[in-house]
């Protein structure tokens, strides 16, 4: 203990001499060992995706809400969680309360940025008191603002920090996931820059961005997220405990897009299955391309 925090890590109400709050950092670390949660802002909507390791062989997983990691906040807002599921539920319930309260008070649905701000204020509160434990979870918030007709993705972290993203990842394997997501055409300013530069060579490592490339659609986003989940599981998940790297897992996906009338609903099962098949084929093809004789080409767990 003395090695890591030297007594400055006993409470989130104490700074260390170099200005860190260890309890908050530990909370972030708790998130890092959970299955990944990914979010992608596409041209026509948002896709949320979580990877759920299914480690316990005797666990009932069909038709049970127990393993849920994506929650509906109100009709037009969804929340994907990484970290402790119980902490996550607390945050999800708070989000529902804030949304319902806003609707009752102002008679219109809560704008996603307001909800994200209120949620981050709530999470942040738990980093201020010695008597409270910070939340061991990170929340990805997908929402649609009917007034501005704009969809947005926010991420609220255990520290209470909250930003809007084109693509966000939390949990085990978030770093490789971010690297993969940076290759996707989801950032309009970068896509424009890539288009202007003429594509040849790209701008400073914009590998995936080619000239005149359109932002990807949610249909494409679902496929790409499925691929990223399989990719990060393959690569061992960057610094995580790696405990369940090869174990069985499930994917949970939801979206909110033009096609669903901006309602947040689960991605239809057949669309997900198709996306997973595509992802597996894609990864296999890339593997053959890169190294035919590297080492064993195991394929992946069913």
């Amino acid at each position, binding site marked *: 203990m003395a090695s890591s925090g030297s007594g400055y890590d006993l409470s989130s109400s104490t700074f260390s001499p170099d200005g860190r709050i260890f309890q908050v950092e530990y909370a972030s670390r708790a998130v890092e060992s959970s299955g990944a949660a990914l979010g992608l802002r596409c041209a026509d909507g948002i896709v949320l995706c979580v990877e759920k390791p299914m480690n316990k062989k005797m666990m009932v997983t069909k*038709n*049970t*809400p127990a393993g*849920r990691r*994506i*929650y*509906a*906040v*109100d*009709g037009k807002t969804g929340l994907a969680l990484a970290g402790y599921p119980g902490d996550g539920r607390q945050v999800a319930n*708070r989000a*529902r*309360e*804030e*949304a*319902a*309260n806003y*609707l*009752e*008070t102002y008679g219109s649905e809560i704008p996603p940025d307001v909800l994200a701000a*209120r949620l981050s*204020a*709530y999470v942040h*509160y738990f980093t*201020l008191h010695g008597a409270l434990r910070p939340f061991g979870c990170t929340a990805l918030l997908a929402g649609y603002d009917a007034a501005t007709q704009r969809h947005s993705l926010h991420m609220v972290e255990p520290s209470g920090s909250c930003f809007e993203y084109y693509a966000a990842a939390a949990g085990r394997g978030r770093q490789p996931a971010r690297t993969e997501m940076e290759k996707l055409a989801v950032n309009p300013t970068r896509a424009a820059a890539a288009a202007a530069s003429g594509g040849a060579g790209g701008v400073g490592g914009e590998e995936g961005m080619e000239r005149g490339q359109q932002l990807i659609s949610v249909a494409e986003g679902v496929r790409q997220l499925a691929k990223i989940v399989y990719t990060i599981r393959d690569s061992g998940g960057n610094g995580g405990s790696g405990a369940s790297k090869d174990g069985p897992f499930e994917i*949970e996906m*939801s979206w909110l897009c033009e096609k669903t009338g901006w309602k947040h*609903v*689960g991605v*239809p*099962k057949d669309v997900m299955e198709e996306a997973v098949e595509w992802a597996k084929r894609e990864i296999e093809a890339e593997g053959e391309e890169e190294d035919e004789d590297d080492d064993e080409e195991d394929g992946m767990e069913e």
Partner: protein
Amino acid sequence: MSLSLQSGGSSSRVSASSFSATGTGIVAAANAAGNQVTTRPITTGTSVLGIKYRNGVMLAADTLVSYGSLAKYKNARRLLPVNSRTLIGASGEYSDLQSISDLLIANALEDRCTADSLYEEDNTNEECAKEVWSYLRAVMYQRRNKMNPLWNDVIVAGFQQNPDGSTSDTPFLGTVDKIGTAYEDDMLATGFGGYIALPLMREKYRPDMEEGEARALLEDCLRILFYRDCRALNRVQIAKVTKEGGVLVSEPYELDTFWDYKGYVSTKAGMGTDGGW
């Protein structure tokens, strides 16, 4: 913003007591606890009629909201869907009806969001009409025990529910009044309609009525109510719940009236006086 864990409210079932009762215009008095309570409704709607028919339930009401005896709002909707298969209609204080509607709609939203699945097709746990009716009964009765009633007589229409949560073939029609009395029947009427329309409906009712017959009966009743109820209007709405189509509420429309009956034409009520007392 001050630091607080209060969200400023709660989305959990709003207990009936958290309605801060009195909207403007409701005459209020202090109860034992010193709170303001409604003692008399001000902006009111008159009768609502409801009837079961062969494959559905139908409600009818006019669109008048009166301010005392003044016909103040002539296009007010008093038949309101609260979820995809339940409909309510209410007479009495209009602001209280709005408040009830908000409460039920918020509950329906909460049900949807806390459902076990992200897939709409899996979610059969939406409240059925009987559950809405029963919940409303509890709310109304609690409020009356606080000596602060929601001043409405409400009719709830929809379908019974199978044990698996799916909609059954049996229609549901129930009413709750402002003191929490609740009962079901094949035909119901609130307010003045209880005196004028209900006897007519009882006379004409058959369980196997077609939709058209049910509608004709309700329109006849509304027309008669318009003739005899000083707080009624010939601008009306009809709404139905069917198993296949869910809730459907018509736009307001006007009923034809006929004023050439002898009793209406004879001047001064046939008394041979100047019409005064």
